[in-house]
């Protein structure tokens, strides 16, 4: 079983702050980590490999410092890491990101299963997984919270829905995006982290030329969206006082909760 895991390096904070003047993310003093959902993706891949054999390749598009995400993934036990790095890749929107990752998957070749995190804690769109599957023209299952069965031919998963879950069986090759409910990620091994920093570590860096893509297809130039403005939304409290008998106010209160999909 050949598995590819997509790994994004993100700033370590659920609360991204945005510079009000420039609209850019404030990255200063914030440590970079593997996107939390991707840890679950890596764990899932390792567990499948432990059962079925094969190999797990991690791919990450990012700046040079994203090498740390690859090294940590090697510490966790993936077999090989590929960093997609090129000035031309910078400023990619979700489509350009998915396209670049897709070209990398094609270059790797013969891949049975692609596992992505559901959502990145910084970009937060949850689009890359689905777009990557579309680009590769393979089936996709999103919101996966349980992998019941994986064989060389098919995968059986439970994925979350608003009301509960769906159980889906899907032939391979396929792409799944996974939720944190899926598993308990392991910690990297110290000896493998050390090995990941050595010259002969199984890490490759691929640039635009390696992927055979033109500058106009990737990064800012290849992006279909245009960011016009970025801002932190203001949160305002809205107060509402319910009046009437206890019975009526409780009923009204329940209605509000239901309407806002809080229960």
């Amino acid at each position, binding site marked *: 079983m050949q598995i590819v895991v997509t790994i994004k390096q993100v700033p370590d904070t659920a609360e991204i702050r945005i510079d009000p003047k420039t609209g850019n993310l404030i990255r200063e003093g914030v*440590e970079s*980590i593997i996107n939390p959902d991707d840890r679950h993706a890596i764990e899932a891949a390792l567990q499948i490999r432990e059962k079925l054999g094969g190999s797990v390749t991690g791919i990450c598009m990012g700046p*040079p410092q994203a*090498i*740390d995400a*690859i*090294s*940590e993934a090697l*510490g966790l036990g993936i077999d090989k890491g590929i*960093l997609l*790095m090129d000035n031309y890749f910078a400023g990619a929107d979700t489509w350009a990101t998915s396209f670049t990752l897709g070209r990398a998957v094609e270059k790797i070749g013969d891949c049975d299963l692609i596992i992505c995190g559901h959502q990145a804690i910084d970009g937060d769109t949850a689009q890359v997984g689905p777009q990557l599957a579309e680009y590769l023209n393979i089936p996709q299952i999103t919101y996966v919270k349980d992998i019941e069965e994986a064989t060389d031919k098919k995968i059986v998963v439970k994925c979350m829905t608003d009301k509960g879950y769906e159980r889906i069986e899907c032939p391979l090759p396929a792409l799944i995006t996974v939720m944190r409910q899926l598993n308990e990620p392991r*910690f*990297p*091994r*110290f*000896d*493998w*982290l*050390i*090995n*990941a*920093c*050595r*010259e002969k*570590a199984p*890490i490759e*860096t691929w640039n635009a030329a390696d992927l055979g893509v033109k500058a106009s297809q990737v990064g800012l130039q290849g992006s279909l969206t245009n960011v016009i403005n970025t801002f932190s939304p203001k949160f305002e409290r809205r107060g509402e006082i319910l009046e009437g008998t206890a019975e009526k106010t409780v009923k009204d209160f329940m209605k509000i909760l239901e309407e806002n999909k809080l229960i």
Partner: protein
Amino acid sequence: MLRSNVEELLKQCTSRFVKSQIMPQARKWDENKQYPLENMKKFAELGLLGLRIPKKYGGSGRGLLDAVIVLEQIAKADASTAVNLHVQLNASPLFVMLYSGEEVKRKLLPALVSGKALFSMAQTEPEVGSNLTELRTLARVEGSYYVVNGTKTMITMGSIAHVHLVYLRFDDDNSIGCLLLEKETKGFSVGKSENFLGLRGLGSTELVFQDCRVPKENLLLKGPGSLRKMLTLFNGTRVGLASISLGIAGAAFEEALKYSKLRTISGKPLIAFQGLQWKLADMAITLEAMKHLVYSAAKDTKLNGFPDQFTSSAARIFSSEGAIKIANTALDIFGGYGYSKEFPMERYLREAKGMTFVGGTIDVLRNAIGSYLSKKNM
């Protein structure tokens, strides 16, 4: 070729592991005077116990600097766990690496890497602490065995270790040396357990040897020159201990700084008061100086891979005293809450104090600096 910086990677990954696996339980271990057995198991699973063991015995073959980086992070959460690990990384197994025969190395080093052979370092005796040359535990030569009699006290991991590195006197040449005594040896028993003020997770106990027969291949050092060899190794262990003090101080400072920004008095955060700013400034300066001393000692490998006596002693003395000062002021900044067991501040102070004794008192270490200075040509 693009590669991660190994030191930075180890630091970040250790810190994340520590925050999720060690920090949440440190208070419980302290209150119950509990040796956290699960930590050593996890360290073995994560390949950490082999950090400094050569590759041919299953380790990673790294140096003191990496050990210091890891210990500092662990000590931020639980200094006892850090001391226990320090003994495995920087103390007893290094004696085995340097002074055991090949057969013993093949038996013990891979076993350490997998967590099956954990070590203690047994030096202190009820009547002899600071002065190694007065040790009373005696090894009598009898054919192909040494017969050991005596008692050790306050031994870290005494109740846990599978192999005890015992410092003792040999009756035939009256020299001070050391050998390895395995837990299963007939006549060996674990004595009373210590009830320390802090560092309560060390599993500290007495060790009792009654006619313990130790095979000759377990000998490490004996005869003239042994003491000098042991002292060189101590230069390295000191820096390991210093990094633990650094970790305790770092944790205390970070907590105090955070608190000083959250807690308000008359509408102002504590840090807005100049009196408190000065305290925090002094803490930050001391911490920075500690860091420099510890890391420059960890990078110093003048003596066959070991730091020299002055650098290592200075790092340990300065950081154990610095940690007490920082932990003490950090406790003050928390006010009455600092004195409460609800918060870790009082534990940091107890741990910092304990670090002045582990591996010998810092006053005795001043003697080492004194003798270095008196020999030094100006």
